[in-house]
């Protein structure tokens, strides 16, 4: 075992400043796989690491390996637009996303790692009469669910975001659904913070370790075969987003998922001009300003299956064209980067957190376009599901909902913009 992890603190910064920063430790230790673990989690992204963390913190299970094919947080955890909100229409969604949002509020203290959570407020613009009615309904639903949101007027929108043109000819702003306690956080730091905390509890994070087979015995999971040898386990958690279908195939079952690219782009950095997150679902665009000053813009998904991590150009064009009408000042901005992430989408646009048909195997996938905001809630609920066999947060998100027709239909409320 290595020396125990030192806590990050103002004192530590002062101490290291006096000795040329020679005392900083690795955030998490390198590990080689053991022969056997109580729990193996496949996928070291936000959701996988959060699951491992809450298994350790809430249930005392620390004999855990987290396997990652590439590098930690290198999938959609590092490719999203970092928006955090919980203004969902359906009760099960509101419960898990609100749990996640509330955990984000104290995450930096909890993990002793600055995830830069900024509760700057999230605004979802209503730009058609239909949306006005839809968001008023969501605001009422949120009031019953205990999620603090309100429907605000166009004038209030203008006060909060002075750079917005609310009188656009094609997309006038008629009001907005406003969640003042939503916001954003540093996406990489969320993965790194959880990884550090997991490592400190003695869990093994094994990168560049690809799972090639799931081994079973008598209808029960026995372990996995990886590029670094066989690893046995009591329970197996598959948390691999876009690759869930391939892993489910290895475990002998199928998932109701399709993978499509979702695009985002980032502008050159400019001075602070917008201190809330704005989402415009009619035009499939959303925008916020990062701490570096870049405008972070999210677009829509392609309509066809693809694993290419790049999307069709015309989607970006549509997003930017509409945003330029709403924010005329961005028309002169140069865009620095654009990229795509592969999102796994289910039939009802809600995630799957479920026991798998194979005993001892659990799946957490299907977060589609909105996984980042859910990381702590998903980890919390999925850890409980893995430890106890059921959880009030995940019960409604089981695989059997597709056979039984109990959908959690968020496709209207949240299908595109997250």
């Amino acid at each position, binding site marked *: 075992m290595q020396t125990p992890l030192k806590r990050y603190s103002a004192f530590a910064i002062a101490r290291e400043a006096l000795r040329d920063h020679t005392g900083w430790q690795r955030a998490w230790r390198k590990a080689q796989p053991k022969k056997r673990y109580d729990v193996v989690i496949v996928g070291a992204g936000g959701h996988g690491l959060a699951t491992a963390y809450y298994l350790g913190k809430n249930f005392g299970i620390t004999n855990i390996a987290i396997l990652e094919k590439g590098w930690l947080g290198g999938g959609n955890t590092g490719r999203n637009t970092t928006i955090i909100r919980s203004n969902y229409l359906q009760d099960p969604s509101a419960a898990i996303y609100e749990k996640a949002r509330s955990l984000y509020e104290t995450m930096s203290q909890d993990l002793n790692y600055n995830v830069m959570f900024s509760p700057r407020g999230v605004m979802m613009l209503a730009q058609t009469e239909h949306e006005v009615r839809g968001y008023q309904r969501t605001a009422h639903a949120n009031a019953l669910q205990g999620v603090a949101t309100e429907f605000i007027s166009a004038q209030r929108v203008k006060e909060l975001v002075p750079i917005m043109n609310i009188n656009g000819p094609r997309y006038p702003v008629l009001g907005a659904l406003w969640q003042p306690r939503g916001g954003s956080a540093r996406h990489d730091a969320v993965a790194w913070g959880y990884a550090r905390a997991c490592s400190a509890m003695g869990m093994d994070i094994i990168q560049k370790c690809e799972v090639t087979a799931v081994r079973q015995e008598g209808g029960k999971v026995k372990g996995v075969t990886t590029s670094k040898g066989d690893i046995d386990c009591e329970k197996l958690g598959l948390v691999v987003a876009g690759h869930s279908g391939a892993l489910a195939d290895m475990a002998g079952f199928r998932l109701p998922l*399709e993978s499509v690219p979702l695009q985002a782009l980032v502008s050159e950095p400019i001075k602070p001009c917008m201190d809330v997150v704005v989402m415009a679902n009619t035009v499939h665009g959303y925008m916020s300003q990062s701490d570096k000053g870049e405008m972070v813009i999210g677009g829509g998904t392609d309509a066809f299956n693809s*694993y290419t991590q790049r999307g*069709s150009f015309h989607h970006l064009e549509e997003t930017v064209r509409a945003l330029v009408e709403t924010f005329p000042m961005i028309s002169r901005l140069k865009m620095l980067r654009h990229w795509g992430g592969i999102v796994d989408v289910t039939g009802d646009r809600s995630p799957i957190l479920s026991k798998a048909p194979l005993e001892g195997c659990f799946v957490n996938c299907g977060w589609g376009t909105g996984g980042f905001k859910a990381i702590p809630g998903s980890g919390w609920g999925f850890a409980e599901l893995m430890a106890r066999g059921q959880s009030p947060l995940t019960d409604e998100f089981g695989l059997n909902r597709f056979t039984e027709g109990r959908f959690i239909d968020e496709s209207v409320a949240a299908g595109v913009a997250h």
Partner: protein
Amino acid sequence: MLILECPYCGVKAEETELTAGGEAHLKRYGPGSSDDEFEGYLFTRENPMGVHFERWRHSNGCGKWFHAARSTTTLEVFGTYSAQTTEPPQEIKDKISARHPGWSWRDQS
């Protein structure tokens, strides 16, 4: 930009002229089927990394539905063919085999 040739009108259409219709060659289950069969028909999809057969509609053109064979990892198009069939034509299968020896897709190969 994805470009598919409509097998009906012969137009080389780019994707803004088309509408994607999801996986092709689904076996349709209706009344009298089991819950699992019906769920599979409605929700379970191949979602492969590689060769994918799918439905498209030439919506801003002739308006007809057709099928396409495409790779989901490279966006390479192996060909388009009529929707009035239950499996891809042999020439498209051969073309895929030339690029991806040993490929399979459900019971096709």
